[in-house]
C-alpha cells in the first residue's frame, strides 16, 4: 500500500491511461487498477467518481450509458483527443521525474 496522497495524485493519470486501452465503467476501472498493481494501488472506490466527474468537466473524458442484458445499465467512459494529449504530456513528465529521482536516490546509496 502506498501513501494516500500519492495515490490520490496519480488516480486521474491512471484512469486516463486505462481508458486508452478501451472504454471502461467505474467498477471496471477500480478492478483493473487493483489487479495490475497486485493489490498495491487501492483507492477508496467512492472517490473515483468525483475524479471521473472532474476529468469529464475538463473534457479529457466523455461518457455514455450502455444497457446490459443482465443487471442495470453501465456508464462507460472514453478518453477524448485532449485527454490523450494531456496524458502523453503527463506521462513523459512522470518518466522524467522517476528517472531523476532514481538517479538521485542511487547517488545517495553509493
Amino acid at each position: 500500500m502506498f501513501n494516500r496522497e500519492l495515490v490520490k495524485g496519480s488516480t486521474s493519470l491512471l484512469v486516463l491511461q486505462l481508458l486508452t486501452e478501451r472504454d471502461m465503467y467505474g467498477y471496471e476501472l477500480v478492478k483493473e487498477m487493483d489487479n495490475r498493481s497486485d493489490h498495491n494501488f487501492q483507492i477508496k472506490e467512492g472517490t473515483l467518481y468525483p475524479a471521473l466527474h472532474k476529468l469529464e468537466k475538463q473534457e479529457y473524458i466523455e461518457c455514455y450509458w450502455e444497457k446490459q442484458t443482465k443487471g442495470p445499465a453501465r456508464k462507460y467512459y472514453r478518453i477524448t483527443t485532449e485527454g490523450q494529449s494531456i496524458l502523453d504530456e503527463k506521462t513523459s513528465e512522470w518518466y522524467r521525474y522517476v528517472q531523476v529521482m532514481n538517479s538521485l536516490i542511487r547517488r545517495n546509496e553509493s
Partner: protein
Amino acid sequence: MNAEQHFLEQLDQSLGPFPNKQEIISEYEIHLYEIFNEIEIQDETEAYETIEKRLGTPKEIAKMWMQEVRITPKKTQWIFVTFNLCLFVGGGLLTVGYNLFDWNWIDFTWRQLTAIPSIIIMLYLVFWGLLGYEIGKEFGHRGRKLLRNTFLICIAPNVLLANVTVFQLIPSQWFQPLLSVPFILVCIGFTALLYPISWMGYQWGKKASV
C-alpha cells in the same frame, strides 16, 4: 432495508441539495450491484461495513463531491471580474479623491503609487497570468472558452478607461505625472500583452489540471 439501500439513502442525505444527485447516486448503485455480484455477504451489518470499507463513508464521499462542485466556471469568472473591477473602482476613487480633496493620506497614497508604475504594471500582469492559470488548472481543456469570455468581460474597464482618457472625457491633468506619451505607449503595449499572458498562464495551469 438492506445494506445497499441504507448506504445509498445515507449518501442521498449527506449530499443534500446537490446538482445531478440522482445520476451520482445511480452510479454508486451500479457500483454496489457489481460488488455484490462478485461477493456474497448474508449479514447486513457485515455488508454495510464492507461497503464503507471499500467506498468510504457517505459523508466522506459527499465531502469529495462538495469539493468537486465548489468551483464553478461562473464563480471563477465573477471572482476575477469583480477583483479587476475593484482595482478600477479603487483607482478611480483614489484619483477623484486626490484631485478633489485635500486629504493627507490620499496625497500620500497617490504619491507612493505613482512613484512605482512599473511595479504596479508587473503586479497587474501577474493578475492576468493567475487568471489563466486558475482557469486552466480547474477546467482543463474546457477552460479555453471560459478564459476568452472572462478576458473579454475583464478587459471592458481597461478599454473604457483608455477611451475616456484619450478623448479627454475626464481631465487629463488628473493623471499627472503619469500621462506622458511614453507611459501611454507602455500601457498600450502591455494591454496588448494581457491576453497572451493569460493564455500562457492557462497553458501552464492546464498542465497541472491532471
